[in-house]
């Protein structure tokens, strides 16, 4: 412990306060865990930074260090070469698919979250179906959806079968996040609104949604990322046109040039733009809310 034992014995109250307010020395476990945390963050970011740096090489560049030259050559290569496949089309399709998945996931998991606050007949069945859908291996589900479409004589495509396959994974995930978000929601606010004469729709629109807004944005962020990055569920369901992860997959099999790294840099930039937009939205909501409270 950070305080000598006799101090604890003689001044227990003071000793306790000292460990709380941060004046005391840190215990040795702090330094061990701080070391672990630093190592984890380095391992998390290190490899990614390597490929971002390596994607900026010039035409002589290879897959490993040392860095050869400095240019945007591989970015141009990425979007102009035929052998790297239809990266641009895949990118557009993945973004559109992810947007559709995000909207449907947000609406679906918000409503399901509302429903699960009360017990209702059959809620256990829906809950376990949801868990089942969450844990089912993606490829197995993809095969099922693919075969189903084949059996029904429908053409599988990224905006029908792949959309459904993605939703069967992002929706349960979103509902679980929604559970966590809603567990912090105080139902007496809702009751207060009802006592003041608000209708059910007004309560949802003017009380529940504004209070849960940051959590809803988090669900949106999850939905977008999970879909944008989904591979195994898309494999059998996306039909003739590939989504981006499928393009990257075929690239990892054929391409051994830094344009692979350039693709990594581009997709990461896109992800960061989206996170930035979402965080900006949260900040805006908070600011608006703060202003709303102060003006009343």
């Amino acid at each position, binding site marked *: 412990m950070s305080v000598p034992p006799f101090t604890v014995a003689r001044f227990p109250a003071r000793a*306790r306060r000292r460990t709380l307010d941060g004046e005391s020395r840190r215990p040795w*476990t*702090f330094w061990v865990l*701080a070391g*672990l*945390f630093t190592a984890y963050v380095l391992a*998390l970011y*290190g*490899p*990614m930074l*390597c*490929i971002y740096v*390596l994607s900026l090489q010039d035409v002589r560049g290879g*897959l*490993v*260090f040392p860095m050869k030259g400095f240019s945007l050559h591989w970015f141009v290569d990425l979007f102009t070469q035929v052998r790297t496949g239809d990266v641009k089309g895949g990118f557009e399709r993945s973004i559109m698919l992810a947007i559709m998945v995000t909207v*449907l996931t947000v609406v679906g998991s918000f*409503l*399901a979250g509302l*429903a699960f606050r009360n017990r*209702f007949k059959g*809620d256990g069945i*829906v809950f376990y179906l949801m*868990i*089942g*859908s*969450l*844990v*089912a*291996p*993606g*490829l*197995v*589900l993809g*095969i*099922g*959806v693919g*075969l*189903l479409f084949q059996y029904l004589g429908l053409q599988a495509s990224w905006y029908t079968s792949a959309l*459904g*396959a993605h*939703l*069967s994974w992002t*929706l349960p995930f979103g509902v*679980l996040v929604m*559970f966590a978000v*809603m*567990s912090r929601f105080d139902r007496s606010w809702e*009751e207060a609104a*009802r006592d003041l004469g608000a209708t*059910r729709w007004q309560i949802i629109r003017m009380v529940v949604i504004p209070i849960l807004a940051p959590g809803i944005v988090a669900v949106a962020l999850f939905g977008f*990322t999970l879909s*944008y*990055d989904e591979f*195994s569920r898309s494999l059998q369901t996306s039909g003739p046109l590939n989504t981006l992860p499928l393009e990257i*997959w075929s690239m990892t099999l054929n391409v051994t040039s830094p344009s692979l790294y350039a693709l*990594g840099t581009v*997709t990461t930039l896109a*992800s*960061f733009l989206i996170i930035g937009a979402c965080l900006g939205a949260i900040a805006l909501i908070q600011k608006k809310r703060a202003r709303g409270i102060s003006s009343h």
Partner: protein
Amino acid sequence: MSQIAATETPAPGKRIRPAGKRTGLLSWLYVSPLVLVLIPFFVVPIVVVLVCSFLEHDGFGGMIPNFTLANYAMVFTAELTWKLYLSTVKFAALTWVLTLLIGFWIAYFLVFHVRNQLLAIGLFLLCTVPFWTSNIIRMISWIPLLGKNGLVNSALISTGAIDQPLEFLLFSDFAVVVAYTHQLTIFMIVPIFNAMARIDKRTIEAARDAGASRFEIMRYIVVPLSRNGIALGSIFVLSIVMGDFFVVKVMSGGGSASVVAALFEDIAVLQYPPAAASSVILLLVVVVMIALILRTVDVRKEIAR
């Protein structure tokens, strides 16, 4: 509006409306979008796979509607099946242990050691940022580090620790476990962090005042109270590893296999019924694993608490 409000306002003193028939209907209305996705895109496809696994096939992608158990017999008698499961379970177990150890201690550090709450949230977000980038790209990013001429090998050679590059770093079982741990630790950190953040710090102060050692505090307070987070994280990690083939394929360089990787090979040659039989068995294994975890905690009650 006032009319509706009048009928909807509960009598004073009565908490929430009683769970009558209307609540049930409304709940079903709210949950219907979820059900409308789960039935056509989870229940029906799984049934299709189940049916398909009992059909004969002509070897050219066609299916003959005759009932047979041959697909299952083939899967169970093949020695390869057992090897695949052994290999997949090995990866799942190693990844689970590593992500749990790292994830638990990182969550613990953020919740109990970082005293400034804003800093703790900032560091937590720092851990989650890479999750928003592509997994495939994150996997590829090990090449410049672990490759034969990669940074790790060059560093070790230049310090004189080794004189031949280490071959096992990339395209090996080692690389597979590294990639899994790298990708999935976040799935442990988030739920455990959430569970730990709810622990009342005064409980620990009280235990400390009562003379509990550091170990006893962990054993009797922190671990039991983070149990749900651990269970939830384990569900994510195990189900992802059991269902993955991409990481195994890329990081092992084709050297190791997994159940789903073999499944993928079957589909590539249009062997749907054997693939379906193997899928059904895998699904059962995963469901049993998750059910065992769910038995230890009531995830639903805990999440919705």
